[in-house]
């Protein structure tokens, strides 16, 4: 550590010249003006290009002014800040665009009838019909898959972090969890198809689909839970064990609650990943146009399958239904997400998160 240099810098930084607070705004305006000038001057037709030029110019101008006034370290800080902002704005663009497209195309068909009726007896070039059957199917299949995958996944993560501690089994499990994330949904579907449907000779049911979805969920749950458990400070465990609390109670009462927020996020991510799966549903659940409340008997439908089949039917009416289905699907995941966060906040130890 060059402590001398640091202290000298430190002392100077208190009195160092800083950029005025209005400077970034001025620089931004300057960058936008320049970009417009360049865009118009070179006759660049695409607007995103103008935006890109403005963004780059802003970062450069900000860096230069800051470097001149405050020194390089602060200039770098500005660049990093701008890049973080740019990253954020970049991510917002597609999100807004996707949501806008789904909402504007889907909102037209959404009404009480759409939400409470099935597609039973609706011709492809007819309006009306609904996705109640698909909504029921999705909720039941995802619920079953979560009930299968979440306990196994969380327990596996507990084993990896609390018991395994780098022994051979935990290394193998940990490695294959990573590999499992790469199993494409269609392969998971094929596996359940040949194992459950063909070898065990089971019929097409919602449960068969839930099995494949559970396989897809498992690695995401394990991975994210493991990361969260690793971040629980050792002192908590040690304090609890020192008080004579058995290890398993320490885990269930101290470690898991502390990490609950992250675990719930992980489970919700996993749910979000599987809720939009089409391929295994088509293979295993088969699909249906009528309401089937029983996930253990007879085919069901599901929202992504509804979206896919309605889209491929190709008529205006069915494509409108497809976008409506997509909108409902997003809304369902959103609601599930909210509920899960509510639970996490309610169960989380007070003051442990910030």
């Amino acid at each position, binding site marked *: 550590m060059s402590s001398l240099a640091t202290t000298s810098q430190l002392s100077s930084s208190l009195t160092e010249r800083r950029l005025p607070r209005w400077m970034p705004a001025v620089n931004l305006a300057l960058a936008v003006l320049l970009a417009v000038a360049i865009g118009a001057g070179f006759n660049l037709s695409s607007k995103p290009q103008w935006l890109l030029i403005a963004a780059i110019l802003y970062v450069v101008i900000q860096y230069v002014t800051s470097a001149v006034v405050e020194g390089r370290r602060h200039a770098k800080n500005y660049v990093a800040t701008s890049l973080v902002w740019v990253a954020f704005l970049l991510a917002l663009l597609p999100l807004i665009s996707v949501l806008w497209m789904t909402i504007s195309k889907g909102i037209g068909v959404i009404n009480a*009838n759409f*939400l*409470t*009726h*099935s*597609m*039973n*007896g*609706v*011709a*492809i*070039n*007819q*309006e*009306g*019909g*609904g996705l*109640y*059957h698909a*909504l*029921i199917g999705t*909720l039941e299949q995802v*619920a079953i898959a979560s009930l299968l995958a979440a306990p196994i996944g969380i327990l596996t993560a507990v084993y990896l972090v609390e018991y395994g501690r780098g022994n051979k089994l935990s290394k193998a499990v940990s490695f294959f969890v990573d590999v499992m994330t790469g199993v494409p949904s269609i392969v998971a579907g094929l596996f359940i198809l040949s194992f459950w*449907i*063909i070898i065990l000779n089971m*019929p*097409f049911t919602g449960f068969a689909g839930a099995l494949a979805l559970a396989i897809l969920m498992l690695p995401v749950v394990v991975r994210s839970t493991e990361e969260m458990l690793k971040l629980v400070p050792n002192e908590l465990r040690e304090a609890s064990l020192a008080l004579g609390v058995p290890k398993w*109670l320490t885990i*269930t*009462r101290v470690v*898991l*609650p502390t990490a609950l927020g992250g675990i719930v996020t992980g489970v919700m991510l996993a749910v979000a990943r599987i809720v939009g799966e089409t391929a295994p549903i*088509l*293979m295993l659940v*088969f*699909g*249906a*146009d*009528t*309401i089937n409340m029983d996930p253990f008997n*007879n*085919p069901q439908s599901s929202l992504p399958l509804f979206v896919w*089949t309605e*889209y*491929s*039917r*190709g*008529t*205006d009416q069915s*494509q409108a239904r497809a976008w409506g289905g997509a909108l409902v699907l997003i809304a369902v995941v959103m*609601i*599930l997400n909210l*509920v*899960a966060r*509510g*639970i996490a906040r309610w*169960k989380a130890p007070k003051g442990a998160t910030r």
Partner: protein
Amino acid sequence: MKLQRNGRTKALAIGALAVVSSLTLAACGSDNNSNSSASSSPAAGGSSAAASSIACSGASGQLLGAGSTAQANAVTQWVKDFQAACSGVTVNYQATGSGAGITSFQSGKVAFAGSDAAMKPADVAKTEGTACKSGGKGINIPMIGGPIAIGYNLPGVSNLVLDAPTLAQIFTGKIAKWDDAAIKKLNPTATLPSLPIQTFHRSDGSGTTANFTAYLAAAAPTDYTLQPNKLWAAKGGQAANGSAGLAAQVKQVQGSISYFELSYATQQNITTAQIATGASAPVAVSTDAASKAIADAKVTGTAPDLTLDLTSAYTTKADGAYPIDLVTYEIACDKGNAPATLPTLKAFLNYISSTQGQTSVASLGYFPLPASLQAQVKTTINGLS
């Protein structure tokens, strides 16, 4: 475990509560869509009148079918009318693709399969003893025909005429510009732009591709030398998923050309090419023109199998006969169908092969089988056991 469960039950209870409440909120869920169907388009309706003449004879419970995407829209219509007439019956057909449908049928998971191509002998063998008990085997029953339209996007050109060799050369990349001499020769009056031709084919395996390539191979054997294939085999060109995907591309891209079922062209208002077949005038795509071409297709299967040979349709020179067609099949067992679903299967197949069933899907871009063939199909269906 107890303690942990204690903690988790609360969370679970809330989750369950949320799910249950969302279900009860919408618990008025209903399969009854008759209100909406009565109020909307009469073209698709007519079910109440139709209902009376559909014979339900013993049909009950749930009938599963899977397969061809090309006949999916027709089956949806048939199911709607059939279920309206026979209460308590559910027919569930899923467009999983012909291959997946046949595989499901072979393992006895569905009562019938839909396929765009007749099942091959090797596949028939796999149905014996598994799907079809008591010495039966799977048979191909032709059910409905559909013309394949050649859709294109060329501003200012609305009556494009093409023939089989030109089509073959366009889709194999030998003709690259719209103002190519070969196209000009067929369209002497049109003002053809000097745009590059962007061909689009199916990226997924499909019976439409199989029939289109079979047409090219039969009608332009010197220009299309590849085997007819469910997977697009020629090099070059761009691809898209499903007929809906192709139609979307043609609509979007200037200078594009592609092939899809007629209904996709009509729905998306895509201009379609006329085909010069050697008849007195080029033929525009329509269900009537296609059904003319299919009129003398020969049955090559041995009864009760009714496999069709469409070569005569592909190479037709009859006036007003459109050559690019497909006929889709239903596949069921001649003997040894599952006893529980047999009455429903027979009733449903009987309805869809009846004149009423065959004509009810005309507005969706399908055409009925020739009358003589319809009679054979009837005999076959009545003989199923």
